[in-house]
């Protein structure tokens, strides 16, 4: 196994509760509660989970857009969490991000040419003709007409705006891209176009994706490996084929079972009861309140991820 591109160890991000004048300090919300995983060069790692499970905070924490409370993000033998701002700024050229909402991730007052070239301007790379050439190249790479250059974001459809976002992300020819719900806001037909584009770019430029989404079908389609998150913890991570074919963690099973799909239609489903608990559950397994196979042990100590069937699963019931 070659040295992974990114190695995340014990990543934690807690948001302190709003300080009340009287009474105890409220428990912090545990957005990310200690997760570790690797991302290998050239692969697409899917990160899936329901809203509030901390998947998009993880993406932002890796890119240091959010300062992690604890843990390490090792990239090219350096721990990003300890890097001074200037050095981090240079490294950012190799790590870019694609956003969910095509309407709010592009500055409405800037023309497409400036939007795409912004990363270049920020780092002072390429001026004048070189800049124009690079922008034309990027436009072409994402399948947008040259006429788009002088127009404003509000003149494009959702799908086209997402392509502009992708072009911008490619401007500094990064190695690693975090796609946070990159296609969730698009209609199915447009979604397909963007997914195909991302896959073509990956093959051509050797990109590595961290693909964050709540849509299981899209994640299964695009990811080589996939991680399932629940309430800030990584409950299961393995190859996409294994996880979707033979889900091990009870929550993964329930998740896959609940997702409506064209093929397995109206079969009797195991409907997961209850609600996501509000405050983080400090001790024991976070899923135990809704887990059909919960036992005494689950309530006392927190299950550590262990090897099973070629992947890591954080559950006591897995031998």
């Amino acid at each position, binding site marked *: 196994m070659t040295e992974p591109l990114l190695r995340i160890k014990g990543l934690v991000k807690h948001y302190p509760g*709003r*300080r*009340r*004048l*009287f*009474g105890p300090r409220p428990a912090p919300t545990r957005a990310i509660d200690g997760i570790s995983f690797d991302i290998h060069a050239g692969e697409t790692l899917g990160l899936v989970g329901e809203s509030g499970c901390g998947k998009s905070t993880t993406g932002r924490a890796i890119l240091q857009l959010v300062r992690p409370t604890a843990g390490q993000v090792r990239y090219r033998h350096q721990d990003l969490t300890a890097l001074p701002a200037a050095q981090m700024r240079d490294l950012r050229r190799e790590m870019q991000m694609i956003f969910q909402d095509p309407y709010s991730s592009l500055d409405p007052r800037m023309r497409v040419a400036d939007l795409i070239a912004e990363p270049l301007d920020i780092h002072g790379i390429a001026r004048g003709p070189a800049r124009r050439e690079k922008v034309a190249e990027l436009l072409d790479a994402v399948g947008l007409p040259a006429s788009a250059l002088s127009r404003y974001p509000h003149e494009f459809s959702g799908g086209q705006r997402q392509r502009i976002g992708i072009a911008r992300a490619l401007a500094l020819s990064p190695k690693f891209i975090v796609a946070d719900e990159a296609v969730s806001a698009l209609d199915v037909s447009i979604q397909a176009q963007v997914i195909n584009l991302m896959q073509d770019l990956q093959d051509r430029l050797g990109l590595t994706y961290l693909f964050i989404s709540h849509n299981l079908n899209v994640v299964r389609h695009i990811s080589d490996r996939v991680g399932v998150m629940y309430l800030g913890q990584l409950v299961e991570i393995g190859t996409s084929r294994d996880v979707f074919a033979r889900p091990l963690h009870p929550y993964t099973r329930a998740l896959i079972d609940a997702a409506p799909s064209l093929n397995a239609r109206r079969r009797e489903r195991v409907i997961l009861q209850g609600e996501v608990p509000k405050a983080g559950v400090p001790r024991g397994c976070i899923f135990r309140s809704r887990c059909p196979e919960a036992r005494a042990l689950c309530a006392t100590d927190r299950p550590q991820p262990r090897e099973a069937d070629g992947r890591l699963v954080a559950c006591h019931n897995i031998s």
Partner: protein
Amino acid sequence: MIGNVIGRLLQVLPTLFGVLVLVFAMTHVLPGDPARLIAGPEATDAEVAGLRADLGLDQPVGAQFITYLSNLSRGEMGRSLHSNRPVVDELAARLPRTLILTGLALAIMISLGLAAGIISAIKPDSLRDHLLTGLSLTGISVPLFWLGLMLVLVFSYHLRWLPTGGTSSLRGYILPAVTLGLGAAAMLARLMRSSLLDIIHQDYIRTARAKGAREAVVIGRHALRNALIPAVTLIGLEAGILLGGAVIVETIFSINGIGRYLVQSIQYRDYPATQGAVLVIAVIFITVNLLTDLSYGLLDPRQRRGAA
């Protein structure tokens, strides 16, 4: 609920202290010596110096501030340099008049402002709406005292319906309150209209309609309740601005309230009186803001448990 009340109070103290320091510094920087002012041009230098010592004005400013603060903590605001009467009594005699004036103006503001805002929001871009928008835009553009003078010209001189002011009877308050209240009503009408129009586009309004409720109920019950939240903020802020306006209106209509007392005491360089008046105005201002914050809780349940 109590937690955030006290929390808000603690936040208010530094502001209050800031106002006090600002006022104390400002009055002492004003040119002109109060002792000379009281003694008049005829008095000899010795007499003026004697008077200054009597009034404690000869001590360094810092010491005066400390004595002022210690008196204040005992609720003692010192005596007016000009009339030698306790400032607390002078303010107490005048406070009711200012409160009646601003109270009436607030009533006018709330009744006219809310009514105009609602009427124009119900049928946007109708003739009524344009009319009321034009009127409210005019309302906020009128110089306060010019409006006062015009009202006096019409209602006091020509029609002789209302006295030109004075606090003998409640009728003396009508013109001043209208002068003060109209501009504020115009401002509230504009805010009410835009906040109602924003809310009418919200999803829960569509849900209310889908339940089969009449338009009047949809607007009256569902939209209005939520539109009142920003309106309450403005009413809180506006109550403060009314106090500022009271200074002018009390001068035009010779109502002997805190506003005019403050202007006079600035002119007489009557430090204790000035500080007392500003303190009272600032306290009223801050209390009103506090009340508006707390009234949030009543109107907007989302605010109820969250710290202020």
